[in-house]
């Protein structure tokens, strides 16, 4: 029950973050990028041209039919909201981080626009 309530609150708190609508093509590039998105270090997905995908996390295929846009956004922003012990990094908050290197201190992994782009791309994975 409590989990449901938290969930409902999060959905309300996760309206689109950026002014410009998400761009799925840019999102796809971000997901595949090993220095910025880092997603494929842990996840696999429908990317026949990618050889080295991780297996620490669920396959991203079909993510857009399993989750709504708001649910996906909330997961990218901070997956700890759903699983406090998750190893998925929080992409759009710096809350609770410790010992961050000087070059990344105070910065989020993604900008609001990048979150939107990735969400737009994930929505195409049906």
């Amino acid at each position: 029950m409590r989990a449901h309530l938290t969930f409902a609150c999060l959905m309300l708190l996760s309206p689109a973050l950026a002014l410009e609508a998400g761009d799925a093509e840019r999102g796809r590039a971000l997901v595949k990028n090993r220095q910025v998105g880092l997603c494929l270090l842990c996840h696999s997905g429908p990317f026949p041209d990618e050889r080295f995908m991780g297996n620490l996390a669920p396959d991203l295929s079909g993510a857009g039919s399993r989750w709504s846009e708001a649910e996906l956004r909330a997961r990218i922003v901070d997956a700890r909201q759903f699983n406090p012990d998750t190893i998925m990094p929080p992409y759009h908050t710096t809350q609770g981080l410790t010992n961050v290197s000087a070059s990344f201190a105070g910065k989020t992994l993604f900008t609001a626009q990048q979150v939107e782009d990735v969400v737009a791309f994930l929505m195409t994975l049906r």
Partner: protein
Amino acid sequence: MNRLAACLVFAASLSLSVPVGAQSDLAPSERKSSYEMMGAQSRSMQDDDMANPAMLSVLDGEALWRKPAGEDKKSCADCHGDARQSMRGMAARYPSYDVAAQRVVDLEERINLCQAREQKSEAFGRETKDMLALSAYLALQSRGMPIAPSQNAALERSIERGRAAYFQRQGQLNLSCANCHDDNWSRKLGGATIPQGHPTGYPIYRLEWNGVGSLQRRLRNCLTGMRAQVHGLGAAELTDLEAYLMWRARGMIMDAPGVRP
């Protein structure tokens, strides 16, 4: 109940709320060395001293062991004799507490201390060719022997600090060492198989480095990947992590110098 008693009860409830289970160490029966987890190609390269590129470094190290240096032109061998006897099992006991320095030091720092105190020579810097060569030669003298941390209160405190750091979520990616090396070993992080992170083979020849490197270099790589603050080579924080990793691998067999992909 008076105030003090209430405080004590409160304090006790706080200490009980520490999640002990979340920080349990890898069970000894579960442990696997990186060597056991490596592909056949890297393994056969490590097995064959003629093919293991780190053995070239070992040869250099043997020469350095015998090379007179410093004010009095003394060599390591002048004090310690034949390393194959005097240094047998030594690397398997480091980091260790150094009485004169009054702190826990790793093998590289121990070499530096001998250079400063006994040889009065200029210390090799960390990760220099000479330091890697000499430490590879010394690590080889423990090949086949079990890792055996010594018993010392200061070392225990260092291990505890290292252990806390190992389980601490850190960096922009908010990961702990344990997230990968205890909870996800054998899985794939991108193209790399996550090892358990036992330091049995250091210094190693790493194909990706195209050269030999120390355990501290490896630890700095992992910390950089986590986007955490990376301590400078020789920092006490890194020695603490080394001490914890050696304690975690206690009893496992040394196979230095290792080869890694």
